[in-house]
């Protein structure tokens, strides 16, 4: 449809080249008063030059961020504004036209192209389909094997790395600077981020082991079945890695006894086994069972009984 209509529009191969006289209305500037526009553009260019020079001077003097930004930003803007104004107000504004030709080729060209592709393709595979199959198999095998160095070499297989932390039976709780935590360190309502002793100088260990220790009034704790001994003297230790997307559950709100993850606003009830009460987190924060040793240091009774952090396919 558009093919036939457009053929009429198509200009001859050797159309006369358009010539215009200087006073053709299409060649007139847009400005009512070109002299005034000229002056305005000159002022803009001068401001631009001053701005750029100003930047150079500031830089020469040792630099100052805001002045640098103001001078060069302003300078470039004025030069650009002047040039755009030159284009808009002083150059021929037309309107000018160019004709548009249909994208589709004439029918004979289309047929020739299609048959060239199809017929020559048939020549290639005529009675030699098995060669094509073999070539395809070769490419496919290469495609798969090529991903080995590209992907497999990048990192280790997960194995059980996601299931474990560095917490072990008897691990002493220490703060970030390696100081052990004693049963007298926190008041009721206090909190502290703790790590297993010996693992505070590695960012990789911190990422998984981080544990938030809070001290609650022992009487207010809702004891979970099987966790009767896990919170000596009101000390409760939970994994600090959010079960939603892995952010540190960093905000302990003493008034409501809740832990808030600042990334996506999941809320966990400290007194009720860190069960999620709000937000997108699906699971309670795993709890680390504690005991107080003979010297009054807090230690882990056992490692976490489940993987810490967000969910993944292999988690059962």
């Amino acid at each position, binding site marked *: 449809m558009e093919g036939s209509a457009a053929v009429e529009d198509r200009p001859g191969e050797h159309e006369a080249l358009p010539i215009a006289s200087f006073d053709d209305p299409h060649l007139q500037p847009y400005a009512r008063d070109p002299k005034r526009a000229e002056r305005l553009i000159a002022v803009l260019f001068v401001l631009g030059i001053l701005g750029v020079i100003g930047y150079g001077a500031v830089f020469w003097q*040792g630099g100052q961020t805001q002045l640098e930004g103001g001078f060069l930003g302003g300078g470039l803007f004025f030069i650009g504004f002047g040039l755009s104004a030159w284009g808009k107000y002083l150059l021929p504004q037309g309107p000018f036209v160019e004709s548009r030709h249909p994208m589709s080729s004439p029918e004979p060209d289309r047929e020739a192209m299609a048959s060239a592709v199809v017929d020559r393709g048939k020549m290639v595979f005529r009675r030699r389909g098995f060669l094509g199959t073999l070539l395809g198999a070769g490419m496919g095998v290469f495609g798969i094997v090529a991903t080995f160095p590209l992907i497999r070499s990048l990192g280790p297989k*997960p194995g059980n790395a996601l299931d474990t932390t560095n917490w072990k039976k008897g691990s002493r709780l220490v703060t970030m600077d390696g100081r052990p935590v004693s049963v007298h360190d926190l008041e009721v309502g206090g909190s502290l981020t703790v790590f297993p002793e010996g693992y505070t100088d590695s960012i990789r260990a911190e990422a998984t082991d981080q544990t938030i220790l809070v001290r609650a009034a022992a009487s207010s704790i809702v004891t979970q079945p099987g966790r009767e001994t896990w919170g000596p003297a009101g000390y409760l230790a939970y994994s600090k890695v959010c079960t939603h997307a892995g952010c540190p559950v960093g905000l302990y709100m003493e008034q409501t006894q809740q832990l808030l993850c600042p990334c996506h606003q999941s809320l966990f009830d400290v007194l009720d086994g860190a069960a999620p009460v709000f937000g997108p987190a699906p699971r309670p924060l795993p709890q680390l069972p504690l005991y107080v040793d003979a010297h009054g240091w807090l230690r882990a009774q056992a490692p976490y009984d489940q993987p810490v952090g*967000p969910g993944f396919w292999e988690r059962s």
Partner: protein
Amino acid sequence: MIEDALNWLDDRLGVSKGGRSFLDKIFPDHWSFLLGEIALYSFVVLIATGVFLTLYFVPSAKDVIYHGSYLPLRGQKVSEAYASTVHISFGVRSGLVIRQMHHWAADVFVGAIAVHMCRIFFTGAFRKPRELNWIVGVTLLTLAIMNGFLGYSLPDDLVSGAGLRIAYSILLSIPLVGSYLAFFLFGGKFPGNGSIIPRMFILHVLVLPAIIAALIGAHLFLLVRQKHTQFSGKGRTEHNVVGSPMYPTFMAKTTGFFFMVTGVLWALGGLVQINPIWLFGPYEPYKVSYAVQPDWYMGWLDGALRIMPSWEFVGFGHTIPLEVLLPAIVFPGLTFGIFYAWPFIEEKFTKDHAVHHILDRPRDRPKRTAVGAGALAFYFTLFAASSTDVLANFFQVSLNTVLWSFRFLVVIVPIVVALATYRICLDMAGVQGIGKRKRALVVTRSAEGEYATLPSAERPGDEHHELDPAPVPVRIEGLDSDPDSGTLDPLSAAPGIRRAPR
């Protein structure tokens, strides 16, 4: 002289015929056509400032003790990536301006692409024959967002480190292969063996920019090959393009515009602080700061993560964390899938297989406009949901209320906006001459008290003033005569003739 040079080139490359028609290429004049140019020029700025940054940035997670000029950090153990970024900010002259300019340019780049895409969508510029260029454009948007995320994750500061951990958790949530993907990419359990920063670096500075540059080339090639679309108007048909020629008018305007965009970005870089990583501090996996928001173009995903209910599927010895998988993998996949498919979806519904070069006015396509406005409202609501905590604080209501409000709003707002848009489009379609400038009428009262209504003076923009479009002249006669002689004064030769801006 210039003729000789052109002939020399033509003898060897035969550039004259094609070159001349390229100089004659017509650019329709409409403000909305600037949006793509903003994106293009932001990209140029990104490349230039990015090259500068690579001269100083060290893509390494290795720990060093900071000894630079920023006193509060002295003596702290930080990564080389973080230390070098602080050094760019305080130890390199103009370094902070250029670093912030790079960040601003990235935000503007993605923003300009998004708004440009809205223009293409609402005016139907994606229709046949431009579906391919739409696909290239959607790919560019995807890559721009990805490269933006990679870029702001590089400095290894507290905020970006938390974002990186979320990205890792999102990878983990993919069934079957998630943990393998995450471990391969990060080189082990988060934060891996220190390889994520150099890996992101090479993707950010080489792989993705190269693909983006190639696709921008393809985008512009298709644009020149298919020529611009245009709004309807005097002398405009499906078989022509009306506007300003490439040389000299458009070239002057667009080069000027390039300098303006660069100037604004430079001024933003110097005057408006962005991503002050020295205030965030270096990344420590157990630390986090309050009110952490990603860059704006990740906001819709952050919002989706926040308002998603906590559904996790556990069974058959496996876990599928739907609360992460659905909003962070499936949802963006669907979003971009629909973007890619839109030209074909619409063609299926309208059964319109014709070639279109004249743009739609959004009001003339109420259904498409309503769908687009609803979608925009949807993503804006999600974006707003990425600041639930800030809103709760600001309005002094509980987080719970804010969250549940958003869970409803994200459904209600798009529907209301779409319906309202549809009604408004229908109403506007019935009004004649809407959007056209009307001649003002001046009411005067004579000394005797007699009122008279006179039309105001004619102004550019009044419809009937527009000339019929003419072909771009190749030769202009009379240029060499003295312009001050008076015989060829263009103003006296064509008094009062002005082109109407569209």
